[in-house]
């Protein structure tokens, strides 16, 4: 089974961590369908899925034409009351009758796109990861962006975020129920394409699409945390200011981000090898820990300087 999706991650536009109650309110935009939430190991709330209908060309590497008809599912999440995500996913399968069916046929599926016309799988998988798809082709980023916007524009937020942190996007493709390998070859899977776009290719043995989506959301979250932290560090430490002022610039990171690092907290065991591979290369936690250590060193030095300064 072929699946794909995108996760966009950003700082929740609220001055403080959102309480559980307000987070549930912000995510409760589908009548009669509750928000799913768990408190451990870290507060995590997910909205109901919303479906977007499409009938359009799918992007391919070769720029060939395949028509896809069906729906993409998206939902929004709030993690630790601080980080918001929009997440879209769909499976792709060939249409049994190779024609456009009545819409009721497509609504019998949930986040399923049927293709009309022939294609090579590899061509489509690469196409779905293209940073520059042709204009009329499937626009997964627009759908995902709108889902994240839905949260960020919620009346439950005060729209005064404690720091500036751009969104990042993770576009992923996965081959499920694929007996070939248990986990992708590390290093080739995860690619930083631009400042804000990352791509991920996965091959998993199991069929649990929800687990794959959760994995991608978790990866996207930690990639965003790391990207944001590195950016804050870079801005703070390269600025031409006193040590105290530099340390002050690191404060938002300490207050809002450091406690959120909890890789693979909600991932089922069979997908852990994917995280483990990424920990080996490029080594998320290693980079994170190094950055956190740097921040702590800055704070320590700053404190020492304060203690050593002459008092009246």
């Amino acid at each position, binding site marked *: 089974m072929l699946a794909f999706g995108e996760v966009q991650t950003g700082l929740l536009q609220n001055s403080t961590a959102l309480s559980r109650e307000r987070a549930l309110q912000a995510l409760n935009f*589908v009548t009669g369908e509750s928000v799913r939430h768990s408190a451990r190991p870290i507060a995590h709330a997910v909205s109901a899925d919303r479906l*977007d*209908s499409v009938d359009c060309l799918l992007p391919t590497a070769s720029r060939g034409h395949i028509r896809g008809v069906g729906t993409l599912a998206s939902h929004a999440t709030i993690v630790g009351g601080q980080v918001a995500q929009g997440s879209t996913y769909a499976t792709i399968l060939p249409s049994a009758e190779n024609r456009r069916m009545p819409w009721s046929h497509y*609504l019998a599926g949930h986040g399923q796109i049927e293709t009309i016309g022939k294609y090579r799988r590899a061509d489509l998988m690469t196409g779905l990861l293209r940073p520059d798809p042709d204009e009329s082709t499937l626009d997964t980023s627009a759908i995902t962006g709108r889902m994240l916007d839905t949260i960020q524009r919620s009346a439950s937020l005060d729209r005064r975020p404690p720091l500036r942190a751009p969104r990042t996007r993770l576009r992923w493709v996965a081959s499920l129920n694929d007996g070939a390998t248990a986990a992708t070859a590390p290093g080739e899977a995860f690619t930083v394409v631009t400042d804000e776009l990352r791509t991920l290719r996965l091959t998993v043995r199991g069929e649990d699409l929800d687990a794959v989506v959760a994995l991608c959301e978790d990866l996207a979250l930690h990639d965003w945390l790391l990207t944001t932290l590195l950016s804050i560090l870079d801005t703070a430490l390269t600025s031409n200011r006193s040590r105290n002022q530099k340390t002050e610039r690191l404060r938002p990171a300490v207050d809002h981000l450091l406690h959120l690092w909890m890789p693979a*907290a909600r991932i089922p065991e069979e997908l852990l090898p994917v995280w483990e591979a990424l920990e080996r290369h490029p080594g998320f936690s290693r980079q994170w820990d190094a950055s956190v250590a740097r921040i702590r060193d800055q704070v320590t030095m700053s404190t020492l300087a304060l203690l050593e300064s002459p008092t009246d």
Partner: protein
Amino acid sequence: MTAAQSSTGYAETTAETKFEQAPLAHLSVELGHLYMEDFTLGFDHLVEHFGRVAPWSAAARTLTKERWGVKEPRVSTCFLIDDYFARLGDPKDIIDLVMEAADKAGLTIDYIARESGCALADGVDLGRLVSDRLVADPTPSTNGSRPPTNKTGWLCNGRRSPDAAAAPAMSFGSWEAPEQNAKNRHSIFLDVELWDGRGPERRWSLPFLAAIWQLLRLGLLRYDGRLVARPQDAGDYSDDWSELPAVMRMNPNAEPFSAYHTFSVLDSRFLEIEHATRVILSQVQIQKQIARQIESRSLGERVALPKEIVNRIEYLILNA
């Protein structure tokens, strides 16, 4: 989405909504869907109506055995009274009239439902519940770049004619035809008004209420996982229609109200309504947990269940 399944088996109860199960009959048979004008025609007119319906109701029951190889089919009957668009007389009088007329024609009505109950059932806003779940039939070249435009209160099955006012360059007399999305060589384009009015004053249209009615009969609606419009025993009738339950159980021995399939005997004047209802139902997203729940029940009972909601609904259209 499953909560993280660790080897210690930790899970949090709020992570997953529990979906209540509705008891299910094999078939729900609608014996009539009547309006004030029908009641004013009097008792004999009602008896005539039920007399027309009776043989088809019996046939549906027999065929349930043959079609699905069910030895003892669970079949329930229902009747819908319009208290939404019309001012009706005293509930007790009308309900008694209907029950007597059916009895005279040899029919048992298991459940009587109010049309208003399809909009607001025992405090639950079913109109919003279903309107929030509309997923539009996309026209070709719908790629997700722009948000879906479902807010106008209309729903169609294809691409509308371009708005002449919005395209003044179009010369007089030129008209671009609308186009049905899944047309079979030629288009049958349908545009249905779902509601008029604004905000809390929304007044749902008949096809939209009829769509909700079918979804209730198919057991496909839940609010936060809980059943809606649960049938309640008739009890003492209030003199206010809005105080009656949305669905009233008239026969204490009735099979369940909801069923895998529905069958309705309709007067031909409802043909357009039902076409519109079908276009609406083709664009309603059923929560996947509910769909799976019913699917696994049907597998357990070996009842063939079409994947598409609209294929679980059958009609007989008769002339008066």
